């Protein structure tokens, strides 16, 4: 461990009110920590700049996962394990349950939280494309009050979000309206487990009479933020799926994404794989729609 523990301070108010009061009093001073699966990695490497941490792990208001007739509301500190093991999540939001199963190992999944994954705002985060395609909505709270933000408007740039320094993500709502959809998700990482994605696609769609009625596509690791592919979606709506369409799909997708060369992969590779995954999804959409 490269950090000096005496340089750091951790407080644990134990209630949402307590945490928000602290954030309100000294907005830029405190870094919220829940499961710590991102924060502690930086700490251990001696690279955690924030010296003052406020604990969210024991805040009960953030732990709940509630099911309503029209939506589910996931408390920000619900862990990947709790998502994986939740019957409604597994049945109705398989893209999210699958993404939760990809993240780290079991120990990480027992500690890592969905809210933390969102706030950490890595473009390579496994669960974020799934939240994008499910049209997630976030509730942000502070002592000033609460506001609702569509998740697709949350990220504004690399590691930049609309979250104010005195705000916390309280919960994530997912509408329960995707039961008839064909879903597809694939993470292409450097290995089959314990990997950071090079490209990750979450997709869902619905076909009637051979024509695409609705389609949602979101990619991770191909832009500074997790990206919903609105142009490509628009292109596909009301189309019949045929291989002659794939060239246009790839070209449109290339216009939308902004992949880079980094230590994990190359922009060229990411671009090609992103196109391949969308094509693979369209294949599945055709095949499963024909079957049903």
């Amino acid at each position, binding site marked *: 461990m490269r950090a000096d523990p005496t340089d750091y301070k951790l407080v644990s108010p134990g209630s949402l009110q307590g945490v928000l009061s602290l954030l309100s009093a000294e907005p830029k001073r405190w870094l919220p920590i829940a499961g710590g699966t991102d924060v502690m990695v930086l700490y251990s490497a001696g690279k955690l700049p924030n010296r003052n941490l406020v604990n969210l792990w024991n805040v009960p208001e953030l732990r709940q996962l509630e099911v309503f007739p029209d939506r589910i509301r996931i408390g920000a500190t619900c862990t990947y394990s709790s998502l994986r093991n939740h019957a409604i999540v597994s049945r109705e939001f398989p893209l999210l349950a699958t993404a939760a199963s990809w993240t780290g190992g079991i120990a990480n999944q027992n500690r890592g939280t969905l809210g933390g994954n969102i706030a950490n705002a890595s473009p390579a985060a496994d669960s974020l494309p799934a939240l994008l395609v499910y049209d997630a909505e976030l509730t942000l709270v502070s002592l000033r009050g609460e506001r609702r933000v569509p998740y697709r408007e949350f990220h504004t740039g690399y590691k930049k979000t609309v979250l104010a320094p005195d705000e916390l993500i309280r919960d994530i709502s997912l509408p329960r309206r995707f039961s008839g959809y064909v879903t597809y998700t694939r993470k292409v990482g450097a290995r*089959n487990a314990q990997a950071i994605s090079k490209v990750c696609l979450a997709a869902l769609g619905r076909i009637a009479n051979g024509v695409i009625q609705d389609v949602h596509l979101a990619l991770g690791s191909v832009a500074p933020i997790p990206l919903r592919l609105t142009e490509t979606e628009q292109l596909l709506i009301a189309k019949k799926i045929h291989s002659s369409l794939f060239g246009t799909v790839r070209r449109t997708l290339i216009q939308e994404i902004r992949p880079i060369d980094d230590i994990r992969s190359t922009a060229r590779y990411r671009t090609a794989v992103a196109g*391949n995954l969308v094509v693979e999804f369209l294949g599945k959409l055709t095949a499963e729609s024909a079957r049903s």
Partner: protein
Amino acid sequence: MASSNERHIVGTSVPRKEGRDKVTGAARYVDDMTLPGMLYGATVRSKIARGKIKKISFDPGVLWDDFVVVTAKDIPGKNCIALILDDQPCLAAETINHPEEPILLLAHADRHKLRKAVEAVTIEYESLPPVHSLEESEKQSTIIWGTDNVFKKFLVEKGEVDSVWSQAAHIVEGEYFTGAQEQLYIENNGVIASFDPQHGVTVWGSLQCPYYVHKALLALCGLPENKVRVVQMETGGAFGGKEEYPSMIAGHAALLAMKSGRPVKIVYDRMEDMVATTKRHPSRTRHRTAVSKDGKILGGEIEFVIDGGAYATLSSVVLSRGTIHAGGPYYWPSVRIRTKAVATNTPPHGAFRGFGAPQSLFAMERHMDRIAEVVGISPIEIRRRNFLKPGQTTTTQQTIHEKIDLDSLLSRALELSDYHAKKKRFAVENKTGTRKKGMGIATFLHGAGFTGSGERYLNSLVGVEAGADGVVRVLVSSAEFGQGTNTVLCQIAAEALDLPYENVMIAQPDTTVVPNSGPTVASRTAMIVGKLVQSAAVGIKRTLSNAGLLGDSYTPEQFRTACREFIAAHGALKSEVRYDAPPGVYWDDEKYRGEAYAAFAWAVYVAEVSVDLASYSVTVDDFVALQEVGKVLHPVLAEGQITGGVAQAIGFALYEKVIWQDGRMVNNQMTNYIMPTSADLPPIRVFFEQNGNIHGAHGAKGIGELPMDGPAPAIVNAVEDAIGVRFNSIPLLPEDLFEALQRESLEAVTSSSNSTRGTR
């Protein structure tokens, strides 16, 4: 191994000697140990690849009085890591030759204070132009080592190569590359050193070769032999990565302990371990082979070059093994093998399981597939037509006396892997879909023990002693680091003495207790040390029987009584045996000719892969590892060695890429240096043939390194079989595959697969 007794210990899977302690957490690793007054040490390392140290300054914001500071000036003996050429300094004094080169040492009672202190030391340099690749080093436009950047050269010549080219129906050329690889033992490098004037220096550490560390400390500390003691603690993996580097970290801790008078612990974290310590030598091999119309090798030229990094360390020995294995298990009527190890400004590359052989064998086995293609016969047939047979000679003109039948070994491997049926099936299935499947083979050999005259120079000594309680202790410096040394040597001694396995123990390697049985390397422990243990154990029995205390057959109780009576009369019961080179073994170090190894293990590996054209990734779906290893002493451990070696070699082939920037590894974390997980590995199906070996204990040969040699070429051969694209460089990552497909045939492949997809 005729035993008058029903008991057979050798060949059975007895419990590991240290297994219970490891499972229950009772095993003591160096980081579990604390000594009174102990300090923690850290290393200030160079930030540049090559240059001169101009000035060292200390940030006044740190309370330096609380720190012990050691520089090269504090070294009492010679500033080098004594090994072969003694060219590597323990601490850089004036000249820097690679990034992360140790310059200065710090120690403090609070380990958390060290990181900031390391960063508070500023070193000013005058940079010199560095050399960062094997090719650049060969050009010699910048000389960074000696007069020509060359650590070592070998030339092997057999027959008249120059005359074969005119007779050849085909001349096949190829160039092959392998990358660096990190050993990734679970436990990072670590030691504790203590010093007092009366006892001298004691080092406890995670290491493979107690007497290498002992030798290095004698030179560094300027102490007599009896004032240096090295103790091996339980060691969490090594794979060669703890062959030479422990001498460095032990030296550092010893210098801090000598200066402070207090014990000092240095344990690297993963980032430091990966960035600063040794890795597998990157290599380049060129083949030019003359082949007859029917696919017989007539002769060839092989050029093998390895990148040794900044200092000579073990490169000459790695080169030697790579040189001798370069011709594979084939008969070469004539051959010229030119090899060299060159210098670059990167941390020295070092020992890693296989030790040069995986590099040159990757080239040989890829090249065999290439030859097959040119001749127009199958990869199977080309090998059958060229296999070494008993009575023929290797490239170093060693006559094969073993009864090895590679033809049958290959046939059995093909059967076990269902090779032909799968080939047929894949040919049909690959016409559609985006997952293309292929089969690949590699046939190879691995010499056990030190090369040529090496074992004679080592002159290993082992001891076996018995106590008055009838408990026998094996005394060797051979270290357990997960591979099973403790268990196998105890099995051998127990079998030799007709005693239950439980009655034989092994001493903790401690240079004040155990003799120098040589380093724990080169797949030599079971074969060479095992044989010496067997003889020493027999010596105990003979001593007791000569004293009239023991008959031909006896119970453990009778043995105990005999020991008690002998010790009462003579004080101690100990038998020592020194290595005696087998007669008639001839090796010429100058011409690199003769009996390179006392025995070879032989193997045929078969890989089944699929290539996913959506992600350009290769998955190994099935793996058959068939090998002839003389005698399997412990089936579970032997299978574990093969399985682990194959897994590690799959990493070498498809996953593990060291990313270099100005001579420094920049992906020195396990998130970015990708080793395969269990979710990436195929079923690894291990099979043995056991022909015996007169030189090894109970007929054993070495097996530890063998499984590292074959998987990479088998896998890359299978990839070519799957998609028809030739790759000659590893690691083969999805990005490489993508770029190659872009170049070759991306359009054809995707359009056909997409249309099938659309109409399914």
